[in-house]
């Protein structure tokens, strides 16, 4: 048995049966990474020695006892590097503390193992903005894995990880999950603590599981969700037993289909897969209801004002003073400017510039404040839709994964492909991507994801329906 191919529940069963120990699993996983990751580029680093020390003490009675979890490279794990795939931190930063999600994973017995590739500071939809190295889609090495959590998706899909943590600011968990054919869950804003995550856009960022099955996503969410006294946006709401949703039926569940998410621009083959998935949900007893999200067309513009504004503020901390790269210069201001020009990659600089402009004196009202008002309209669209339905179903990405380099020279074209995922972040609601088949492009079968969106703190219905679909699709 190759333990790297197992799910969380499969690995736990193998431990319980005495077929494997955590030390065996980590040793195998590490050699799989060494032999197979060079052609994928999903990991930036992994440290078997550190992980084996944890594995020897693993408490198998805990919910994730002895389970290795790959970690997106913007989440702090004490003693591990955390580069955010940026030259400004690479080789120059070792985390002095654990993020709350890592503390919770450790308390549940899990072992953080491996740092996954990503778009620099989570800015991108293809992983091509990694400042360290490219990441490839395991289903076709010429194609992107999606982004920004591209490495996390690729290593889970390639079975060189059991499961991974990702973050989602505008689709960065769901879109790479869709492109790589795995499950990715973005929790509700306020469901999971962001303490110890390097912030991109603080009003949008969430952290969530990227897994081989819906049951694994439920098991991880149950562990990482809940209040945190170091993140005041993290709500003190009870954490339901998400794992108890697995296997429940969806008879009578109302699922909305937003007309705007099946409009022009959607690849016909992707549409066909998603519509077939909706038919499966209907055959399982769900009631399919047409809904409208009329402000969808404004979501990309709203998002790229708000996200870049917040990023320009958050990334001010990378100035060569307290951590990371420092350029040599005679004076302080010169040191700041040179450090940031040398350390940040192209997309990060572009977004900092855009964000700085929309927040600058005289333009704040015209851009940032107006975008926040349109954000209110987008939220209201969802509130009105969720008055009629329990969940919304849609594609994740309008297109299958494209080729490396295909859209890289046109930032706006890349932003527009985020159309189906970013509204959930603006509205603060939860969403999941579940594999719903493949489309054949140039002789390769490329995965397609079904997106389900749930209301605020509606992860229970989301997981119930996603699992029912996963179990019922064949």
């Amino acid at each position, binding site marked *: 048995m190759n333990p790297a191919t197992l799910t969380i529940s499969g690995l736990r069963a193998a431990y319980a049966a005495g077929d494997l120990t955590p030390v065996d699993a980590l040793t195998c996983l590490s050699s799989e990474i060494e032999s197979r990751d060079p052609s994928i580029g999903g990991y930036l680093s992994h440290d078997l020695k550190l992980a084996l020390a944890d594995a020897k003490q693993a408490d198998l009675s805990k919910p994730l006892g002895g389970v290795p979890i790959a970690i997106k490279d913007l989440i702090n794990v004490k003693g591990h590097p955390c580069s955010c795939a940026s030259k400004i931190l690479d080789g120059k930063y070792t985390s*002095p503390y654990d993020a709350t999600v890592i503390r919770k994973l450790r308390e549940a017995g899990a072992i953080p193992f491996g740092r996954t590739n990503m778009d620099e500071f989570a800015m991108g939809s293809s992983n091509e903005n990694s400042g360290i190295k490219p990441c490839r889609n395991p289903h076709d090495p010429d194609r992107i894995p999606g982004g920004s959590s591209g490495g996390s998706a690729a290593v889970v899909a390639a079975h060189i990880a059991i499961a991974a943590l990702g973050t989602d600011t505008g689709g960065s968990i769901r879109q790479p999950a869709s492109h790589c054919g795995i499950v990715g869950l973005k929790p509700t804003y306020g469901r999971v603590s962001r303490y110890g995550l390097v912030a991109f856009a603080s009003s949008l960022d969430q952290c969530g599981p990227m897994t081989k099955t819906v049951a694994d996503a439920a098991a991880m969410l149950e562990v990482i969700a809940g209040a945190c006294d170091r993140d005041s946006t993290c709500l003190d709401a009870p954490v339901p037993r998400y794992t108890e949703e697995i296997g429940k039926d969806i008879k009578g569940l109302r699922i909305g289909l937003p007309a705007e998410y099946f409009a022009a621009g959607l690849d016909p083959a992707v549409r066909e897969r998603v519509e077939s998935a909706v038919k499966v949900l209907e055959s399982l007893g769900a009631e399919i209801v047409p809904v409208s999200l009329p402000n969808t067309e404004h979501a990309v513009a709203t998002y790229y004002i708000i996200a870049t504004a917040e990023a320009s503020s958050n990334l001010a901390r990378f100035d060569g003073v307290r951590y990371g790269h420092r350029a040599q210069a005679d004076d302080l201001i010169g040191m700041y400017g040179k450090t*940031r*020009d040398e350390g940040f990659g192209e997309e990060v600089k572009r977004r900092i510039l855009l964000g700085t402009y929309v927040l600058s004196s005289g333009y704040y009202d015209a851009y940032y404040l107006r975008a926040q*008002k349109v954000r209110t309209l987008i*939220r209201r669209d969802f509130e009105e839709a969720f008055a009629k339905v329990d969940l919304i179903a849609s594609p994740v990405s309008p297109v299958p994964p494209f080729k490396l380099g295909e859209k890289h020279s046109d930032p706006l074209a890349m932003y527009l492909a985020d159309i189906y995922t970013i509204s959930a972040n603006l509205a603060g609601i939860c969403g999941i991507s579940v594999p719903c088949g493949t489309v054949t492009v140039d002789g390769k079968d490329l995965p397609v994801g079904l997106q389900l969106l749930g209301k605020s703190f509606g992860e229970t219905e989301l997981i119930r329906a996603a699992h029912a679909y996963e179990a019922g699709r064949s």
Partner: protein
Amino acid sequence: MNIRQVAALARLELTDEEAGRYQAQVDQILHYVEQLNAIDVSGIEPTAHAAAVYDVVREDVATGGGLTREEALSNAPLVAQDQFRLPKVVE
């Protein structure tokens, strides 16, 4: 939008090649986002974030922040006398 002015605000020292490229790209993105000007937002409250939580308070006691001085300085490019050392600010 003057990219050099914005870059100065953002503390980014750009090469001439970068400045030319970013000027064109940021102009293009700004042109796209100007579609929001056509929307009637009169009387609409802005959404700063989507969480239904405000003003989280706790007892006013020092918690130490969780890091020792040594840990806080452990990633610094340059340290002197247990502090972050910087280029000269005042002549």
